[in-house]
């Protein structure tokens, strides 16, 4: 199988990672102004023909690719090609970046000030930057940072400027453009703006893809974009969006460049600036439209401590080696390359697999702080309804246990080993004091804090049970967003643990079936590369056997004496998601006629009702992210069908038999093989 090469089986303990340096240290010891005005002479691509922003636009407008589409569109619409060219020029004008060193210097100055107040440190793996410099010299480079905060792309440019590396051009969503001044500032620091949706607009697509390709091919600047498409509100990696990746791989596939380096960058925040904002968004408080004034309101956050940021520049991935013995490049030989063609199945699946591989590379190099492990423990305790909270000692013990487990699974955990664990725990708790409450040596999530800092302006007193629940949920989802950072470490073992739990026997085949079902069910929820079920199963088995949790022989899977604790933990990792998907199935079973638009509000209402009556254990199933993913999975599996076009546009057609049996299978009431798999 092709993806076998992508996920080679290796011991995560042996994973070698670079050391970090704090880049703020120097900023605290020397003049920011001098730094902002420093001599900036980055290493450039060896094949670069330097050109100005305006020349770049000319190249796009005069390209054969765009020319072809312009002729096509002008014929279709019956307008002159000059008009269409004008239209294209306008699109380009709206889109194009105007990278200016002076603006970057301005940002370098201000961001230095801001970062020093907000963060204790910004840690970078300098070796990664050296590799990046080499990559930039040799080939066109695509930077692929993870996306957890608005901060990400300014931070990226800030780092590259600091280390004298070529400044990137960044694909940004149009929503930023709404902020007048800031939008222009971002444009001048290298952002170019893309409409969120331009479905069938051929001309827009042509301008956009040609613009990106020309900048990339000519080595004008590294091209930066977010594989996940948008900020992850849950801190789980989002399943990758393929459009831009497709575009940037195209010049290699068509032989226009020798190779392209894709550099995954993992940015982890010890405390996310948008923490509570995201939680409320997931709970249905709509996302505030980006506006300049809104950004300034955020000034309040300047007074808080957000800990440190870790940025890890991963190993550059060569598109050429990804494509080797995977893609037959001669498929492009028979059509002139400037004629836009729909990518073949082969290309699509290649791009898709590459995207998953890159997101996994981001995940693997994401630094995890001790707090992430504490979040696991605290959330599990909360769900178990331990009202008194957890004793600090017990919390520490569990955290240390989890620390060792996660390290065995290959987590990139930054746990200061020279400090006693109890101090590590208490300092983590104090950084996140908004989310926890410590009284009499016992710790629990700060759920009772009605109208507290998370929900400003709320009037005390007249609070409904529903509001109370939502307030609680804000804290729980905020906390979950930290736990989620480490989900990728545990997801395969957790799927196996749940499979063992639900399978009717300990026969390996049966457990595999169960694993496969769960994996398939949750592949919109977690980064699970399509088609890699066997590899994932093997990886999970390998980890659990290696850590002494399981013994596996030809036929059977046996749990060891000391394995029970690990398995209990692992099943509880997946439990909230299992329950979430079950309740979504239940909800759908009880519906008659529902449109896609009505889905989220309705399911939310349904869940709130059940939470209030105590029939649901996990408050976090209120997350709209989980609900959307569940629906997407059900559509993918065919249990729900989305009607396209006609009067019933957007209506969801429900296969209740299947939904029912899926619900039962998720709940472990039905064996995997007989029920759902038969339907699939």
């Amino acid at each position, binding site marked *: 199988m092709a993806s076998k090469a992508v996920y080679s089986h290796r011991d995560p303990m042996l994973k070698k990672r670079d050391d970090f340096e704090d880049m703020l240290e120097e900023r605290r010891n020397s003049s920011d102004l001098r730094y902002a005005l420093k001599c900036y002479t980055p290493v450039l691509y060896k094949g670069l023909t330097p050109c100005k922003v305006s020349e770049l636009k000319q190249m796009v407008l005069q390209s054969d690719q765009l020319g072809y589409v312009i002729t096509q569109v002008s014929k279709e619409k019956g307008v002159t090609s000059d008009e269409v060219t004008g239209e294209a020029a306008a699109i380009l004008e709206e889109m194009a970046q105007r990278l200016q060193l002076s603006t970057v210097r301005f940002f370098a100055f201000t961001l230095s000030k801001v970062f020093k107040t907000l963060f204790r440190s910004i840690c970078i793996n300098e070796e990664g930057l050296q590799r990046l410099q080499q990559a930039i010299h040799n080939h066109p480079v695509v930077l692929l940072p993870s996306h957890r905060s608005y901060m990400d792309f300014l931070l990226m440019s800030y780092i590259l400027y600091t280390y004298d590396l070529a400044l990137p051009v960044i694909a940004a969503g149009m929503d930023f453009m709404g902020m007048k001044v800031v939008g222009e500032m971002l444009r001048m620091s290298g952002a170019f703006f893309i409409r969120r949706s331009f479905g069938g607009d051929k001309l827009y697509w042509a301008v956009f893809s040609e613009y990106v390709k020309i900048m990339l091919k000519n080595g004008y600047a590294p091209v930066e974009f977010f594989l996940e498409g948008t900020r992850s509100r849950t801190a789980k990696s989002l399943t990758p969006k393929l459009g831009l990746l497709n575009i940037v791989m195209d010049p290699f596939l068509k*032989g*226009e460049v*020798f*190779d392209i380096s894709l550099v995954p960058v993992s940015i982890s925040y010890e405390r996310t600036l948008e923490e509570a904002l995201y939680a409320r968004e997931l709970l249905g408080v709509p996302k505030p439209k980006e506006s300049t004034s809104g950004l300034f309101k955020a000034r309040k956050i300047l007074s808080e401590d957000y800990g440190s940021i870790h940025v890890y520049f991963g190993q550059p991935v060569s598109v050429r080696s990804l494509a080797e013995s995977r893609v*037959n*490049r*001669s498929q*492009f*030989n028979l059509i*002139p*390359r400037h004629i836009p063609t729909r990518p073949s199945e082969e290309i699509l699946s290649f791009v898709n697999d590459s995207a998953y591989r890159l997101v996994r590379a981001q995940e693997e190099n994401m630094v995890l702080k001790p707090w992430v492990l504490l979040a696991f423990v605290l959330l599990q305790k909360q769900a178990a309804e331990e009202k008194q909270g957890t004793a600090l000692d017990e919390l520490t013990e569990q955290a240390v246990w989890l620390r060792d487990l996660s390290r065995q699974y290959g987590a990139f955990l930054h746990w200061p080993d020279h400090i006693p664990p109890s101090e590590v725990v208490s300092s983590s708790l104090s950084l996140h004091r908004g989310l926890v409450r410590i009284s009499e040596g016992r710790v629990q999530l700060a759920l009772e804090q009605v109208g507290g800092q998370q929900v400003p302006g709320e009037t005390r007193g007249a609070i409904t049970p529903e509001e109370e629940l939502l307030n609680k949920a804000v804290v729980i989802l905020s906390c979950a967003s930290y736990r989620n950072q480490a989900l990728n470490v545990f997801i395969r073992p957790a799927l196996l643990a749940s499979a063992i739990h639900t399978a009717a026997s300990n026969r390996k085949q049966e457990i595999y079936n169960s694993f496969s079902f769960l994996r398939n069910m949750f592949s919109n929820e977690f980064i699970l590369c399509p088609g890699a079920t066997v590899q994932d199963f093997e990886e999970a088995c390998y980890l659990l056997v290696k850590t002494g949790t399981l013994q596996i022989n030809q036929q059977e899977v046996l749990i060891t004496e000391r394995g029970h604790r690990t398995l209990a933990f692992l099943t509880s990792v997946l439990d909230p998601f299992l329950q979430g998907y079950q309740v979504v199935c239940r909800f759908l079973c009880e519906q008659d006629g529902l449109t896609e638009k009505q889905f989220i509000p309705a399911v939310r209402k349904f869940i709130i009702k059940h939470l209030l009556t105590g029939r649901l254990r996990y408050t976090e199933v209120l997350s709209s992210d989980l609900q959307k993913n569940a629906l997407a999975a059900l559509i993918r599996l065919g249990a729900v069908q989305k009607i396209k076009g006609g009067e019933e546009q957007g209506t969801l057609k429900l296969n209740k038999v299947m939904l029912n049996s899926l619900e039962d299978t998720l709940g472990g009431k039905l064996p995997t093989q007989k029920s759902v798999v038969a339907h699939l």
Partner: protein
Amino acid sequence: MSGFSDNIMRLSGRMLSQYPAQRDWDGKLTMAPHPGIIPTFSIVTLSDNVPEQEIMKWNGWGYSDSKFLYNKKGQAEFTGKRYRLSGMIIPGLREWMESTFSANLQHKTPAAPILNSSAVQPPTLNEAFLKELKSTGIPFSHDAEDRVFRSHGHCLHEIFALREGKIGRVPDLVVWPNCHNDVVKIVELACKHNVCLIPYGGGTSVSSALECPPEETRSIVSLDTSQMNRILWIDEKNLTAHVEAGIVGQDLERLLNESGYCTGHEPDSMEFSSLGGWVATRASGMKKNIYGNIEDLVVHIKMVTPRGVIEKSCQGPRMSTGPDVHHFIMGSEGTLGVVTEVTMKIRPMPEYQKYGSVVFPNFEMGVACLREVARQRCAPASIRLMDNEQFKFGHALKPQVSSIFTSFLDGLKKFYITKFKGFDPNRLCVATLLFEGDREKVLQHEKQVYDIAAKFGGLAAGEDNGQRGYMLTFVIAYLRDLGMDYYVIGESFETSMPWDRVLDICRNVKARIVRECKDKGVQFPPLSTCRVTQTYDAGACVYFYFAFNYRGLSDPVHVYEQVEHAAREEILANGGSLSHHHGVGKLRKEWMRESISSVGMGMLKSVKDYVDPNNIFGNRNLL
């Protein structure tokens, strides 16, 4: 046929590969048998001639007396008297070799000086065949040297093995048919006794086409066409010549020149390659822009196959009689039969020839210029574009200048181009040009081409540079032997592609070579360079040269082959062809199916199955 043979033109037997300056060929004039047909020459007998292998190297390129070497002073010189460069000192070559390959004169890898006959396996002879062959009187030999000489072409691995004195499977017997009828007899006997025949022309193959298949158990007979080297007639009314297929390029041109004609077909190997070989591989000549490639030049072909003789019944210039059977023959690479006689177009010799050259600021501009020249269909007889590395290489091969004045002038030119015009010496590249025709038209044509070049930043760089460029074509093959004396191995390979892919293929293939060398453990950066050698309406032909210093490698030839393989994969992935004119042989067979589709393969196979069901022509090329 035989009655006619008293009045035919003929070279002195087996010395056909010799250079005219060295040996005159005998012959006296007789009357023309028919008006309009050129007076031809009487015959010299075949016996007591110097065999080819005595004037040709047995383990390297070309004539034994011509080679590059470093003299006692450590200067490079080219020996012999045959070429313009012969006897000259080439001062820049040593430094170029040392800096390009990190080669060192102290580190030598000399070749085995003489062939050790005991290393050659004794021949597997088919006695019945031999007996009947004897009765025909056709000359043959199973002497080890004769057999080894015809067992290879000029692929790197072939020459490398010979230099190390390693001899693989070689033909068991060599036969020298003298005419078409001799070939008919030999093929009949081969069929009767189930003997494997491998036609041999000039031996310049670079596709492993001449290698004996190691799995062949039958007796292998090398059919050397070199004695079939006569121009049978020249028809001035129709401007055609009927020629035996064993004739070698330079002899054909020289003989025709004497009558005021030429074919204009000048492949780089024309000193040694034969007409039959050109037909069998679909050869291409440097001046194809005026004269066409072999498929444009051929009017009629006669080929002997196991099924009998194939030929057309008339010499009409074009026919609509189903698929052209000539196209089964051209490119058949000796798998279907032996081409014995060919009627070719001829042209009056050009009145005037002029070389030229243009310097471009970079390769991209150069390619754009060639494309424009092709678009306007005004390509000179030849137009070639060398990349920067090759430009430097050509520079290193400049012979010692005789006067201070020339060297001063050279310095001035360099100053003008790099300083005054601002060309980057590490990016500029050169196009070499050859114009042919009547004087006025040539000058007019020249102006047109230089005007186009100027639009792409090209500067005229003189006749001399152009002429040297073409001269190098003939000596470059000798240079590989020098490299091999000092741990440097290399070869060239070619492809063709549409115009829009020229730059991409050049860049990607060169980069791929560099990367593969690195990956395969080559210790020093390789030479990886290319040139555009032919232009067409819809595309171009590109030649790659690739060489590296193999010190520190245990199996350099294997590394070389892996890199060349990767380079070919890169070419195909980027939309280049499997071959423009070298052919497929056995070296590139593995890509045939993807190149011409399974149905295409089936078509070719069914032709082979019909024409040669017992695989008498068993060199196993192509399919």
